[in-house]
């Protein structure tokens, strides 16, 4: 007989492939509902990459939470089931799995600079269809919307041109086609 392990619990499973999924979670807009969702992620050790939440149907008191999370396929399935188990949660849709979703993010990017740098920043912003929403003689604030990787790329380009700070909303997602989330 081999010497028993000293832990009370089975060894941690070997690393599996991690995937990133975008989940749309339709919830009752009541106090504490966000705390329940976030508490679930914190308590069970799931990752949150991005989180957006806002009321979407005022009359029905419904809010939509969009969460981008990473995990193995089994963990992602667990997350969806655990979310679905919360009493104020109406519906959980895995936007990545349906493959028919549109994802967008908005960012505001502040850049400080003079002379040629300033001109270059403005030129790139134009190429990325970012709008100028604030300007001083030595700075710009750009507003840019798009997929996250487009924003990542824009921010990277601004870095040598005097990037000061970035504020991003996180991802909002919606399914293509005529069907809505709450129609069930």
């Amino acid at each position, binding site marked *: 007989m081999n010497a*028993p392990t000293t832990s009370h*619990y*089975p060894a941690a499973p070997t690393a599996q492939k991690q995937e990133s999924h975008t989940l749309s979670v339709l*919830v009752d807009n009541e106090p504490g509902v966000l705390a329940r969702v976030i508490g679930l992620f914190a308590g069970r050790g799931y990752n949150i990459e991005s989180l957006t939440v806002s009321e979407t149907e005022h009359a029905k008191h419904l809010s939509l939470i969009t969460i981008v999370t990473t995990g193995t396929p089994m963990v992602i399935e*667990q997350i969806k089931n655990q979310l679905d188990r*919360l*009493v*104020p949660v109406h519906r959980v849709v895995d936007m990545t799995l349906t493959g028919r979703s549109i994802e967008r993010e908005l960012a505001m990017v502040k850049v400080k600079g003079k002379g040629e740098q300033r001109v270059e920043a403005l030129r790139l912003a134009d190429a990325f269809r970012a709008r100028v929403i604030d300007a001083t003689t030595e700075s710009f604030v750009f507003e840019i919307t798009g997929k996250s990787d487009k924003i990542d790329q824009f921010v990277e380009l601004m870095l040598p041109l005097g990037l000061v700070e970035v504020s991003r909303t996180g991802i909002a997602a919606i399914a293509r086609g005529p069907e809505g989330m709450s129609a069930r």
Partner: protein
Amino acid sequence: MTEEMTGAEMVIRALADQNVRHLFGYPGGAVLPIYDAIFAQNSVQHVLVRHEQGAVHAAEGYARSTGKVGCVLVTSGPGATNAVTGLTDALCDSIPIVCITGQVPTHLIGNDAFQECDTVGITRPCTKHNYLVKRIEDLPRVLHEAFHIASTGRPGPVVVDIPKDIQFAKGVYSKPKDFPHTGYKPRLKGDIEKIKQAVELMANAKRPLFYTGGGVINSGKAASDLLRELVKLTGFPITSTLMGLGAFPAADPQWMGMLGMHGTLEANMAMHDCDVMICIGARFDDRITGRLDAFAPGSKKIHVDIDASSINKNVKVDVPIIGDCAHVLEDMVRLWRTGAKHPDKKTLGDWWKQIDKWRARKSLAYRQSGDIIKPQYAIQRLYELTKDRDCYITTEVGQHQMWAAQFYGFQEPNRWMTSGGLGTMGYGLPSSVGVQLAHPKSLVIDIAGEASVLMTMQELSTAVQYRLPIKIFILNNRYMGMVRQWQELLHGGRYSESYSEALPDFVKLAEAYHAHGIRCEKPGDLDRAIKEMIDVDKPVLFDCVVDPKENCFPMIPSGRAHNEMILGDAAESLDSAITEQGKVMV
């Protein structure tokens, strides 16, 4: 029909309308209006415990032995925080509890007022759902919703936190009615296509087995009856988790005993070697599976559970069925009866022959010799002397709990109350208070360890106050036995802090509480002492002094596979037929 009344009156009225007969609680500043409402009525009897943890455990015992919702009333701050262990215990074991907590008045919430705590924040992860009621208009709906959520789907504890000003406020009460909640809809019927797939798998099985759990008990008596019918129809062997004991009668020849870390050799070996596993209302807990990558490697797995998040959590299954056990079992029985194909008798016979070989190892064997009582012998005698009675068993947590599960034969559901998921020492005594209250004429025994029982010993006072003749049968080995066992096996025999230097004299302690004390130290005196315990019409503390060195076997060391069990000395000596290869496996 609607009536105007105060929030406090609504609480009691809602309990009465939900057919609550007993309420376990402890008063305090923030629930005084509700205690005033209790004073003015007779439909709900309040049971005064000695500590809020005891209130929740008592409500759990009440709920588990009756299938009804257990109710608790505690005050704000320390009242609520003391209840947290019980709430977590109820969540882990899926026990329906409604716990009403008092809260400081709404205008003081967040001000660090006296006896204020963030009850909904603290209890969020340890309840199925919780509420803070800030408007009197919401109170009747929330109270009835709480009962609905606690008792349906996968049952669990629900907390309703009521500020003191809401208890005083007047509002319009409404009776329970249809539940309009749109987000909460537990699914009862299983997907019939999946059930057909499952029955097809079962019909073609060569080495099948049933692995059942607490879900069958929670689903009600009908589920246990249907399970018995299906097991008889199929002729398959059956094992169960700690939580599922009693759903299938232990006296039946198809019963293999409990499985898992301290399960029988036959149950664990059969799990390891089976080709079709039918899991009903169990959740592949780490105490059951052992090493995951070696868990039942060659098997197709069917999993029936009402909670979708239990499926594919630890173990990937082949046929997941989301639904209530009774509903799914009913479909399975029907499909099996009408199905043309059934397993080959010869193949199934070979499987049973293999199981009988494992059984012949007598993995639970022990030697009762000499002048000292073996704990297994004590449980066995207790079983023999109480089996023909209307008897309910609760336990604390540790070695005595495992011996009770191994040696006490449960024939019916709802007779076995133990803290399985959370493993709460101190669960058994208060739990037996709740059981005895629900079943005043029955024999209720808490099989205890001397360390566990001291954690909630004060509830003996509750038992005496309400004349509840519970029997606390302490297997006293002066150690935290399971801790000592792990230290012996895994930590080089360094018994760090697991020995109790100064234990009370339990007989005198019983007398101090106005209960009856018995001490038994010799195997020859045991039967007479147990009979005395049964006959005394009072709470009894039974100090059964047992062998302090005894370990609980068989045992799968954690992180090991089912076929890597350690057997006790007595079992090993019986295995003359075992090959060298077989010995390596043990």
